[in-house]
């Protein structure tokens, strides 16, 4: 009788059968969103045209050089923000954590701000050109993580609360630096900076996408095997260690992976708010809280939402487009409020 109550273990990596079917459903949604985003935009392309069009036709050029890299980037950024949000909320045992919290996004933003405001005064645009902004972003993110690592003695000092507080403090310091840069920038630099802050997937090329996707995919794949340890750490750090989890190693792995994939994402697409915070909660509502399901679930959901949001950004006021961060924040912030009220109710 009770045997039927105990779920089949399903795949050890991805949770129960029900969760596996939800993951399958999310994959389908993601694929559909991907094709919709490829086909729609200021220039409509039909499915048959993709396959029938000649090599040099305008449709092929649009798809290969503009839409495909752009949609792939939004997919990767959505997946990385979604999964890193889930992982960091798990590590900090805090439903309000997100990739911005440990200062990575702010670090990338600082790097980008320096690239936009300071470097043109010293070196000419052409010497780095295309790579300047993303490299500066990754460097900024690494700098912040390095700082966090030193200040918390390898993420081990006095538990996660301390780590969280140091992250918040670093965020504030970086905020000041960006503020100073904003103040000394010229009008055109300010405009670039502001638009970068709101995020966009436009202007991506294969040359930038390929190294970024390598970094993002590797980090995401390295995070997945930590899912059971992230479950165990919900019992508290001492308890997790009694169950055989090397907590310090887990922290280092999680934070370095999140830092590199969020750093790469932010460097290429700017600050995109609320996805890392909200997507994990949506995924939990769909299929449960176990990280074995949650990590791939949040990645797939984040990717689907980001691809769709970018599609909306491109078509809503075409031929112009809205900054993607505006759309995600517009959808995300009311949801965030709802989440806070829901949490309050659960206290009783």
């Amino acid at each position: 009788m009770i045997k039927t109550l105990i779920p089949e273990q399903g795949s050890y990596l991805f949770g129960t059968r029900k969760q596996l079917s939800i993951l399958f459903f999310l994959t389908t949604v993601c694929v559909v969103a991907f094709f919709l985003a490829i086909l729609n935009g200021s220039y409509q392309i039909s499915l048959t045209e993709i396959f029938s069009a000649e090599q040099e036709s305008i449709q092929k050029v649009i798809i290969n050089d503009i839409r495909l890299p752009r949609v792939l980037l939004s997919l990767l950024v959505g997946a990385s923000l979604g999964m890193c949000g889930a992982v960091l909320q798990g590590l900090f045992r805090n439903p309000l954590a997100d990739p911005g919290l440990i200062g990575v996004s702010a670090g990338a933003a600082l790097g980008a701000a320096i690239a936009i405001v300071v470097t043109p005064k010293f070196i000419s645009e052409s010497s780095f050109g295309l790579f300047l902004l993303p490299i500066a972003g990754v460097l900024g993110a690494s700098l912040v993580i390095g700082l966090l690592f030193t200040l918390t003695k390898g993420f081990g000092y006095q538990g996660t609360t301390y780590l969280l507080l140091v992250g918040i403090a670093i965020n504030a310091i970086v905020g000041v630096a960006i503020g100073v840069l904003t103040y000394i920038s010229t009008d055109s630099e300010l405009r670039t900076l502001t638009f970068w802050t709101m995020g966009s997937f436009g202007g991506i090329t294969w040359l930038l996408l390929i190294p970024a996707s390598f970094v993002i995919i590797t980090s995401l794949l390295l995070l997945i095997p930590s899912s059971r340890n992230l479950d165990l750490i919900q019992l508290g750090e001492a308890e997790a260690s009694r169950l055989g989890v090397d907590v310090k190693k887990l922290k280092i792995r999680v934070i370095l992976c999140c830092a590199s994939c969020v750093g790469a994402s932010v460097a290429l697409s700017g600050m995109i708010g609320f996805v890392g915070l909200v997507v994990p909660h949506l995924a939990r509502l769909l299929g449960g809280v176990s990280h074995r399901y949650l990590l791939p679930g949040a990645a797939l959901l984040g990717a689907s939402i980001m691809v769709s949001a970018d599609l909306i950004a491109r078509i809503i006021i075409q031929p112009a487009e809205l900054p993607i961060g505006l759309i995600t924040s517009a959808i995300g912030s009311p949801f965030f409020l709802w989440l806070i009220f829901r949490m309050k109710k659960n206290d009783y």
Partner: protein
Amino acid sequence: MTIKSKGISLTIEGKRIIQNIDLEVCPGKLVALLGPNGAGKSTVLKVLAGDIAPSQGTVEYENIDLFRMPIIERANLRSVMSQSQSIAFDFTVMEIIEMGWLHNNHEYYAPHYRDALTEIVQMCELQSLISRKFNTLSGGEQKRVHFARALLQLWIPETEAYPRYMLLDEPLANLDIYHELKILEIIKNHLSKNIGVLIILHDLNTANKFADNVALMKEGKIVKKGLTKDVLTEPILSATYQTKIKVNDTTPAITYM
């Protein structure tokens, strides 16, 4: 084949928390750790579990220094139940119990997953709770779930029962009488499975009835340890607890005046 602490002391910021503790837990034996509040019982348990390294002295599991043992190996030898933290996300009771299952990658034990889980859920009478959300349970129910998880952590097929240990910090707090007795019965049954138990208790009568050995602590030191009947005597108890305590031949054996 024991957990053995030799002269462990712990000093934090110049303050002696525990001093020169020698303790021994053998498989098949129930050792009760007793003493007034703030005596250092929980700290001793944490050091024996490997959570905190002592300032002096050593802890050995089967004659191997605990602090040189890989974390995962420790997990296979002992499970710990202590004051637990609140859980941020809505895990189900089943998911919480399942966290104790360490053998997913073990060639021989992994196929026993459902048998082990079924056995323990039935043993702890948690059938009606397993699909509930953990955070909606009462304090006592949560205790029982954590206890089941600690049992699952030590589950191995009976034929291969190597010595293992349970370290329990007040597992009976918040429990009603029925479940208190139930858990004590389960602990008793596990002693015969080559498991040794160290348990921190408040109730002297429970200790008197169930423990093989007792260690009595006060102000960070062991006042007296040994066979239960040798330690739980009127003069020792009265002095340790600074209360007049009477030990009778009837039940309850120990009464407070």
